[in-house]
């Protein structure tokens, strides 16, 4: 008698897929293309680890000069902290001030809200443009208008973030369940009403999650924007490198690390709360 324990599991041969040969040759072709691309890229970037090993002394010298960090309150630490707060403000305003524009373009540039095809295409094009132009280019442009300083950084982030967040929001609207929107359409609601009362309430958690994610990214970006003159701690790091004050630079970098870790943790915490019991 066979019991459940002694029974040998039944097996069946897995049917082989047709056109297997074609698939294999495609895989080989893809592998060859990828390898060739990498060889070209290694050459184009001068990617030779030997150079790194040979040049270790340079790095060691640099680090030796940077250690210990210069913790002088009046000349280094306080200006550094103040500039870090400015960096945070740039990231914050760059994110929040782009909400209206991103929301408008997302609603118009989402297939589900059923805007006129021309409007849809126009909104998509504007989003693509703002996304394609890097924030640092926007910063360089705005510096010529409003001068060096954090305001140029905020403007640059507003532009770039509108493009990125608008696209992400439009996509999350397209991915959400269309049923409630369709129900309101059959109830005689117009397109704006459908978007405001069905689509948007459905995607609020995703929208807030993406907003926090963008805030996180924008704080980092505002750091880099500082390097091209748009204020904040980036500017101080740039200045300390130019004047060979590597110990001051290290202090600023440590402060920045703390800021980024804090922002990252806080936004992760809030996002976790959002995706928690309620949705």
């Amino acid at each position, binding site marked *: 008698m066979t019991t459940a324990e002694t029974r040998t599991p039944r097996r069946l041969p897995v049917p082989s897929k047709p056109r297997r040969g074609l698939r294999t040759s495609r895989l080989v072709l893809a592998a060859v293309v990828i390898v060739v691309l990498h060889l070209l890229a290694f050459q184009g970037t001068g990617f030779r680890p030997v150079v790194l090993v040979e040049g270790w002394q340079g790095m060691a010298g640099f680090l030796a000069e940077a250690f210990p960090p210069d913790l002088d309150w009046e000349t280094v630490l306080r200006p550094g902290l103040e500039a870090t707060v400015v960096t945070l403000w740039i990231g914050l305003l760059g994110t929040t001030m782009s909400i209206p524009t991103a929301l408008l373009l997302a609603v118009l540039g989402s297939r589900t809200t059923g805007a006129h095809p021309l409007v849809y295409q126009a909104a998509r094009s504007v989003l693509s443009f703002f996304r394609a132009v890097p924030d640092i280019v926007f910063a360089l442009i705005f510096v010529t208008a409003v001068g060096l300083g954090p305001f140029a950084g905020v403007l640059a982030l507003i532009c770039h973030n509108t493009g990125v967040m608008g696209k992400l929001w439009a996509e999350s609207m397209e991915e959400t369940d269309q*049923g*409630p929107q*369709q*129900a*309101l*359409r*059959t*109830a*005689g*609601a*117009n397109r*704006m*009403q459908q978007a*405001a*009362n*069905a689509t948007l*309430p*459905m995607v*609020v*958690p995703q929208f807030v999650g993406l907003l926090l994610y963008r805030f996180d990214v924008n704080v980092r970006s505002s750091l880099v924007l500082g390097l091209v003159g748009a204020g904040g701690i980036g500017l101080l790091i740039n200045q300390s490198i130019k004047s060979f004050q590597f110990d001051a630079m290290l202090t600023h970098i440590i402060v920045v690390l703390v800021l980024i870790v804090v922002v990252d943790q806080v936004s992760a915490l809030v996002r976790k709360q959002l995706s928690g019991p*309620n*949705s």
Partner: protein
Amino acid sequence: MNMTMTAPEVSTTALSVRGLVKSYGGRPVLTGVDFDVRYGEIVALLGANGSGKSTALQCIMGLADPDDGGIRLGGADLGPLRGRELAAARQQAAMVFQKVHLVPRLSAVDNVCAGALHRMPGWRSMLPQLYPRQIREEAMACLDRTGMAGRALEQVGRLSGGQQQRVAIARSLCQRATVVLADEPVSALDPHAAEQVMSLLADLAHTEHLAVATVLHQPDLARRYADRAVGLLEGQVDFDVAPADLTGEHLEPLYLPDRVAA
């Protein structure tokens, strides 16, 4: 219920479908469907999977474009109507879906108010918090009519399937619809909840004089709650009988495996 329109006269035709034709990608789905629904009656639509029941309802609601045929809603021929006039004529009909299609994060009363969006002033229709007070109160009365007033402030996503379906029916009442089209409203519900929803739909037809057409996959429910049963087969109406006359002779050909549209 405080519906402000005059109750339509019982036994006049609310919905009339004539020669409805619809094909998808050259494959005929409906090849000339005729049926009527009168005020005060509930009609069950029966038919195999793929027989075109949903397609017929979608054509009536404007969710699909029929290739041919005429649809009259509340005496108005939809054929020549366009734009706003067509939308206004269609507002007489409300749709109830198997998957309820409520917004899960919003409260029951907010969801019911959304049925009245078409008569809310522009900016006040953009946020539930701005909905006019009269509409909120009307929504409460609609929830009361479907037995859900006690759960008005709860998030819809937390209600059971049967409760959600009753909120969805309340939404169609708040729309002030006189014709309710329900596509498998009880297919996802347990037997008890299904009975509740079916008896609610039948009661709305009989006491509020609504015209109700509901797609059902359970002939037994049709027998007990409907005033008439319409069977769809091969794109046409195969039978249109009183439920008492609904026999195996009607039903067997409907669900024969080889008859099901491939």
